[in-house]
């Protein structure tokens, strides 16, 4: 796996890693996150991960939301 890629999926971020949200390729996930202000350009950080590795909790503009790995896969992330 190429670890120094610049663009990856949210599901590939490890605990504590940060990134900037890019394209979200599923309409239902995009619209739900849109309501919560979690849109392209926002900085996010993986905060903690559920005991069985799924779902994950991410920090977006000061609050925490949790999301399944399956949905995290459709969220493009620019790593920082």
């Amino acid at each position, binding site marked *: 796996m190429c670890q120094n890629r610049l663009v990856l999926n949210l599901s590939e971020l490890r605990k504590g890693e940060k990134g900037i949200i890019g394209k979200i390729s599923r309409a239902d996930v995009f*619209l739900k996150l849109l309501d919560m202000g979690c849109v392209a350009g926002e900085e996010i950080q993986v905060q903690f991960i559920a005991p069985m590795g799924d779902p994950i909790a991410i920090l977006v503009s*000061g*609050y925490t939301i949790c999301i399944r790995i399956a949905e995290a896969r459709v969220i493009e992330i620019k790593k920082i």
Partner: protein
Amino acid sequence: MKREIRIALAGNPNSGKSTLFNNLTGLDQKISNYPGTTVDLCQGTKIVDDSISINIIDLPGFYSLFPKGEDEKVASDEMLRLAYYEQVDVVVYVADASNLRRSLMLFSQLMDLKLPIVLVLNMQDLAEAKGLKIDTAKLSEVLGISVVPITARKGKGIDKLIEVLVDKIEKTTFTFYPSNFFENSISNTIQLITNKTNVYLNLLLSFHPDIIQKEPIDFSGLENKVDYETFQTNDTLHRFKVIDELLLFCTTTTKKKSSSDLSLKIDEIVTHKYWGFLIFIAVFFLVFQALFNLAAFPMDWIEGIFMWISNLLGDVIPDGLFNKFIVQGLIPGISGILVFVPQIAILFGLLTILEDIGYMSRVSFIMDKIMRNFGLNGKSVVPLVGGMACAVGSIMAARTIENKKERLLTIFVTPLMSCSARLPVYTLLISLIVPEKNIFGIISLQGLMLLGMYLFGVIATLIVAGIVQFFVKNDVKNYFIMEMPVYRVPVWKNALATMISKSKAFVMNAGKIILAVSVLLWILGTFGPPNKFKAIEEKYTVRLDAGDSDAEAQLNAEKLEYSYLGFLGKGFEPIIKPLGFDWKIGISIISSFVAREVFVGTLSTIYGLSDADQTITLKQKMQKDKWPDGRPIYTPVVALSLMLFYAFALQCFSTIAIVKRETGGWRWPIIQFVMFSLLAYGASFFVFQVFG
């Protein structure tokens, strides 16, 4: 003249809306149906002084006027309705000041509906800890409305809010949404249809024509409609842009330290690989220990008080039918209802506290992966755990699940969790077959058996969900995205408010049914075909006159057997005999199809009629009871068979009614009823035939 101000509370989930509601209304609240709809709303009243009172409705938390789940739709529809009918004096928008940007998005939508609105900035303490300073005066000036900073948990700023609400609410011209955003042709056409001048309201109405129920708006003439998703995207992104400018102008951030540091540390442990599940199990073990240990005392008091009243009234009222009716029919009926109140109050109180401190959302988080295997969702945990208190309220809590399939499955299986109405049934039956002994000195055997029945309920719930999931069609919306609030110290008033309102609802709803059933049973059990009754009485006259002490008990037993109730039970007996049940159990089962807790009440009424000896308890009467051939009725296998029957059977009118309402038809409650009845019969049949 008395002035009544109608206000509606709106805001995002976790914005502290309910805390503000409890703070404003105190403990005088009621849950009611909104006229013309099936929506449950929390209502309360704040008396300001002799001439002014404020009527408050609390809506479910939501994120936008483009609802994703059922609970959001309830709130969003209500907002459109209030704007359309202009039925509200003030909308109090509760914003989480520590998440201002997101909170203001929905606020901006409501403002553009031209609702009279007051902006409340809640959680000032959290915002300050984050280093965020909000210039409320400036914000108020720009928006042209009142802005009130409060900290609802500490009761700060509430007085100021009330002052503002009593004052005249200013109309503002500020809009977030440019009215020329859409082609005039479309908005003009819609305007002609709705007769409303507000472009934003018109556009939203054209997506939800069904919410205006009195005179549904006919949008069929509307060609080239605006695309819903495009509209939503443009609308929301535009709003965030305006909000960002607004925040730049009205707020300053002094230090960038996250207030959720402590929260994060707690989450490291609570969501830990191993500790996470251990804590989950420990928390619920403690909840159930507290439930049984704490509730035991008030339950004893209630029983004692009723025993005393019963003896008193029995002596005071002259002997006869009326005396019997009070002592054997009415009082056991009422005491049978009230004795549950402590347990229900404590369970709901504890669940509210867990929700309040933010633990329930962590439970959803760590359980999601496991629940998914059974076609459920992390959010299903809340209704399922709540199902241990009462399925009725919990089924409504499933509204937060956006995925239709997962929501339906959650609704379907929640009644299999051991609810508090099964508790008295289990308690009575366990006391018949399990000795009152402790192992290792502290763990009670009876308690262990009860825990076993609860576990059985959980396993049955998951297995049924796991099977039924293959028969429900998938939903397009399939995600688990949920906000996790920071941990907070619980607000005791919130727990107390829930305890009181749930107990009140229980006594009023279940109480009426149980009382009616008790009275009906007493009548059916006291009267029978007059000729037959006369013959029985004549048979015993000689022995009674001779002072035979057994004669009266035998007379009562025989009378009951030939009463109308006895005939009914005897007719039913062949069906339940393969399960090991006699006609008395049969009557109790039939009557408890209304509500499970009726079972114990029915048995007490029946045994009270047949065995007038008031010095021995129901348990002792049941242990004495025998089949005509002399075998005891309540063997361990029969008790187990009966408990399994109650574990599965859908014996609760309220649950059936709520499932019908929440799934929008009779289909699912019927499937549920048939399936659970078959499971109940099958499990009982198996146990009695194999081990009996």
